[in-house]
């Protein structure tokens, strides 16, 4: 029973980290491909390399530091961060699915980035390097926070890091093949899944940090995933059919 629950929570961890990493990496890849195609592949890839080096340095500094914080406090803080981050993702995914905000379009991002770059003044290689670096560093920072928080709180930092590594290799390989067809990635569905998982983890670890006794211990995690998924689906269905009544009734 305990072994099954642990395997289940590990599976949730792997899926959450993998999808979160894929979403962020696809965004970074869009920028890098746009920079590479319109400016200079060499400078774009240099920007990627420096950004990855900077992120590695951050992980090397902050990764071991997490181990020195008392577990209860760490879980409460991390749970809070995951809750906020997950709720932001889930909210956006619900609103996109219900048609209240526009879906994230990688082709539009590609076109906008390419247009900005072709109009940019100044040293060509420098612009390509900076845009590529910023894109990879900022999206990568979100990946780092996700991997560190989820990995450290569940004592599975190695598993979380390995999953992120697999996601990186996969996105890079697929990116190299499909290059511009990034809009085919079902970004909103992935964002919804990640949002649900982050909120579930956030709730679970906050509770653990507060020393709550969850029914079934680790088995509560997939149950939370199910509850949040069900409510999200219900909210989307209501918003799609009758926004006014939903608005009034749900508050």
């Amino acid at each position: 029973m305990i072994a099954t629950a642990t395997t289940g929570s590990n599976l949730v961890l792997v899926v959450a980290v993998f999808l979160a990493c894929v979403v962020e990496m696809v965004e970074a890849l869009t920028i890098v491909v746009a920079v590479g195609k319109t400016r200079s592949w060499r400078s774009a890839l240099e920007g990627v390399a420096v950004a990855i080096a900077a992120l590695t340095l951050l992980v090397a500094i902050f990764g071991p530091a997490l181990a020195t914080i008392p577990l209860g406090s760490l879980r409460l803080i991390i749970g809070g961060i995951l809750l906020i981050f997950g709720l932001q993702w889930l909210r956006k995914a619900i609103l996109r699915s219900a048609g209240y905000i526009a879906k994230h379009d990688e082709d539009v991002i590609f076109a906008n980035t390419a247009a900005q770059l072709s109009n940019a003044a100044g040293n060509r290689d420098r612009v390509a390097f900076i845009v590529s670096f910023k894109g990879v560093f900022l999206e990568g920072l979100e990946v780092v926070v996700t991997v560190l928080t989820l990995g450290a709180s569940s004592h599975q930092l190695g598993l979380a890091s390995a999953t992120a590594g697999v996601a990186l290799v996969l996105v890079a390989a697929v990116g190299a093949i499909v290059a511009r067809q990034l809009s085919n990635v079902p970004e909103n569905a992935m964002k919804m899944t990640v949002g649900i998982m982050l909120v579930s983890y956030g709730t679970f670890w906050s509770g653990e940090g507060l020393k709550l006794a969850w029914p079934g211990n680790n088995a509560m995690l997939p149950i939370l995933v199910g509850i949040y998924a069900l409510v999200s689906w219900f909210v989307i269905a209501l918003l799609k059919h009758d926004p006014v009544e939903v608005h009034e009734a749900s508050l």
Partner: protein
Amino acid sequence: MSETKQALVIRIIKGFAFFWWDFLVGDTPELFVGTVLVLGIAAMTSLLGHLRVLTVIVLPVSVLLMLLVSVLRVVRAKRSS
């Protein structure tokens, strides 16, 4: 420390602070404030032995309410505009 180094340090600190502000607050301050409030209340109720069981239910329900309020905030704004 030279002025150039000081300016660089300040820029890094500002960038770091901006990242966390954007990451945690951004355009959804209600989720940040709500989470702090929910965890604060949960922390208080979990200290009281007889309310600890209740917190197990209150925590996920509060999270869902926070999500609904934030979603409906956008729905209301979109419909009134």
